[in-house]
C-alpha cells in the first residue's frame, strides 16, 4: 500500500486494519496516512519524532482482506475513547485509560443536556483532543483535509451512556472562518454508536445553532454518501413537518425565501429536497389551476404525506427545546 501521492492524508487502501476505541474494536473504512510520518510506516508519527521513545513492537501475521493477502501499516490502532490519544500498544492504552484526565469530566461548554449531552469543544482551547478527534475521524470519512490546524474550528461532541460511562459517541465540526457560512464541516457518529439517530440529532442541533445565530445555513459541500442520505432525510422531514402540520400547514402558497428563513435551510437545499421527494408538479395539469397561474410549479401535499408514510416517520423534532442552552 502506498500514499495517494496527490492528496494529503488519503491512501489508496486502508492502512490500519482495525481500531480499538475504549471497549469496542472494529474495522476501519478508510486509510489515514497522517497518523504516520512520510516514509516511516512502521511506527506512528509521534514515535518517529520522539526518537528516544522506547518502541513496543508487536509481531502479527499478515491479515487478509476478502481472501487476498494484503499488508497494512498497522494491524490495530488503540485509541482512548475519551481523549482520542492513540498508540500501537494495547498495554499502554490500558494504563492510560485509568489515568485519563477526561475520566472525571469531558471538556467543553454544555450546549444541550438530555439523555444525550452535546458539548462545544474549542479547537483553540483543546488542541490535542481536537487534533486526535480529526485523525480518528479520517478512518471513517472519505474526505478530510484538516487534522492539525484546527484553531478556527469548533467541535460539537455528543456524549451518551455506554457500559456505565459517559463517552463521546460522535461529533461534528464547524469552521469559524467558513467562506459559505456553513454550519457544519464534517460529521461522524462512531461505528459502535450508529443507528441511534445521533446523526439526525447533531444535524438538527446544527440548524438550531444557525437559528440562534439568525442565519440561513447548511453543511459544507460536497456531501459524503452518508451525509447526503442523512441530510436529505432531515430536510425532507422539516419540509413535511412545516407544510403539513406546522407553520405553513394552512397556507395555500409559499415562497422559497420564506420557507428558507423559517427553517434556516438554504434555498438550493430546499429545492434539491423537493426534487428528491418528487413533490414538484407543473401547474398546467393541476385542478383549479385558474388560481395557480402565477407560477408554473406547485408543491403537492399528498406526495409529502406519502413520503412520510413510506419512511414510517413521524417528523417530530428529536431536539427538546427545553434542553438547549445555546448561549
Amino acid at each position, binding site marked *: 500500500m502506498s500514499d495517494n501521492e496527490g492528496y*494529503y492524508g488519503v491512501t489508496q487502501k486502508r492502512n490500519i486494519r482495525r481500531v480499538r476505541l475504549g471497549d469496542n474494536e472494529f474495522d476501519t473504512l478508510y486509510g489515514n496516512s497522517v497518523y504516520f510520518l512520510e516514509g516511516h510506516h512502521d511506527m506512528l508519527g509521534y514515535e518517529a519524532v520522539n526518537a528516544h521513545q522506547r518502541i513496543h513492537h508487536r509481531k502479527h501475521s499478515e491479515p487478509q482482506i476478502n481472501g487476498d493477502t494484503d499488508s497494512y501499516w498497522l494491524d490495530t490502532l488503540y485509541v482512548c475513547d475519551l481523549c482520542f490519544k492513540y498508540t500501537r500498544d494495547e498495554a499502554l492504552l490500558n494504563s492510560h485509560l485509568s489515568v485519563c484526565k477526561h475520566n472525571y469530566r469531558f471538556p467543553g461548554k454544555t450546549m444541550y443536556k438530555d439523555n444525550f449531552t452535546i458539548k462545544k469543544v474549542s479547537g483553540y482551547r483543546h488542541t490535542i483532543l481536537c487534533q486526535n478527534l480529526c485523525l480518528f475521524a479520517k478512518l471513517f470519512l472519505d474526505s478530510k483535509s484538516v487534522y492539525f490546524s484546527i484553531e*478556527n474550528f469548533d467541535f460539537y461532541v455528543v456524549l451518551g451512556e455506554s457500559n456505565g460511562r459517559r463517552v463521546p459517541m460522535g461529533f461534528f465540526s464547524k469552521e469559524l472562518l467558513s467562506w459559505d457560512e456553513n454550519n457544519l464541516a464534517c460529521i461522524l457518529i462512531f461505528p459502535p454508536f450508529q443507528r441511534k439517530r445521533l446523526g439526525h440529532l447533531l444535524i438538527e442541533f446544527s440548524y438550531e445553532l444557525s437559528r440562534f445565530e439568525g442565519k440561513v445555513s447548511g453543511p459544507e459541500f460536497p456531501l459524503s454518501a452518508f451525509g447526503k442520505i442523512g441530510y436529505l432525510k432531515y430536510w425532507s422531514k422539516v419540509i413535511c413537518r412545516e407544510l403539513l402540520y406546522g407553520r405553513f400547514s394552512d397556507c395555500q402558497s409559499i415562497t422559497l425565501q420564506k420557507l428558507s428563513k423559517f427553517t434556516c435551510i438554504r434555498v438550493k437545499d430546499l429545492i434539491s429536497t423537493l426534487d428528491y421527494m418528487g413533490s414538484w408538479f407543473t401547474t398546467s395539469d393541476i385542478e383549479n389551476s385558474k388560481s395557480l397561474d402565477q407560477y408554473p410549479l406547485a408543491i403537492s401535499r*399528498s406526495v409529502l404525506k406519502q413520503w412520510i408514510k413510506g419512511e414510517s416517520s413521524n417528523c417530530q423534532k428529536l431536539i427538546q427545546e427545553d434542553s438547549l442552552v445555546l*448561549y
Partner: protein
Amino acid sequence: MAKRRRLRSKEDSVKTKLFNLDELIDSIPIDVDIPIVDECSGPKRTTTEIHASSSVNLLTKPLNIVQIPSRQRRRLTTIKKKVSHLDPLDDKLFLKHHQRAEKSEKKMTNIEKERVFTEYDYYLHCLEQLKTVCQDYEASMVPNQQMMLRITEPFTTIDDPNDRQEVLMKIQLLIGEITKFTRTFERLRKLELKLKTLHNNFYHQIDNPEDSDTEEEAHMDVKRLRETRFYRRLKHGPLIKIRFLDGTVLVKDAISPPKVINF
C-alpha cells in the same frame, strides 16, 4: 514540500467559465409565491436524480464490531510490575509531532490564502472594468463590443454579443457575483482578525461568557445553566428587545450580533 490537499469545494467538475450565470438565470425565483396543493395528477418537474457517490457500498459494509470485556482490560494492567499514576500517553508525547504537522498544514493553507488574495485583487480590478462596460452599454447606442467581450471572456459566455438584453443581464449578474465575492473576502478578513484578538486575549480574560468551560457548569441542570449564563452575560451589558407592531422582535445583547425574530 507540502502535498496537495483534496479540497471538497474543488471536487466538482471543472467549469470552463468561472460563473455559471445561465444556471442563475434559469433557477427558481425565491420570492415568488409557489402554490401548495392537496392533490395533483400533472407531470412532475424534470429533475436530475440525487445520486450517492461511488462509495455507496460502504454504507452496508459490516465493520465487525466486537466489544472487549472491561475485565480483560483490568487483567492486563495487573500484569505490569510497577503501577504508575503518570499518564503514559501524556500530551507532551504528541506535542512535537502535532506541532510540526500543524506547521506543514498551515503552509498548505497559506498557499490557498495567497491564491484567494490574488483573486481578490484581480476581481476588484475586473469589477471596475465591468462597471465601465455596463455604463457604456446603458448609455451608448453603439457600445464597444470588443472591450465587452475581452472583459467578460474569463467569466462567462455571451451567446449573442448583439443581444443587448443578454449582455446587460450577464454583466449585471457578473457585477453582483464579483461584489459578493469581494464582500465575503472582506468579511472573513475582519472575522479572522477578530478571532486572532480573541485567542490572544483569551487567557487574560477572567470571565469569558462566550466559552465558559467550568467544572461547576458541568454538574448543573439545564435550568440552572441557563440562569447562570444569562446573568453572566448581563454583566457585560443589558439585553435589549424591541417589539415592532407587525410582530417582529429585534434582540441585542452585549455579546452576540443583533438578531431578528419575526415568527
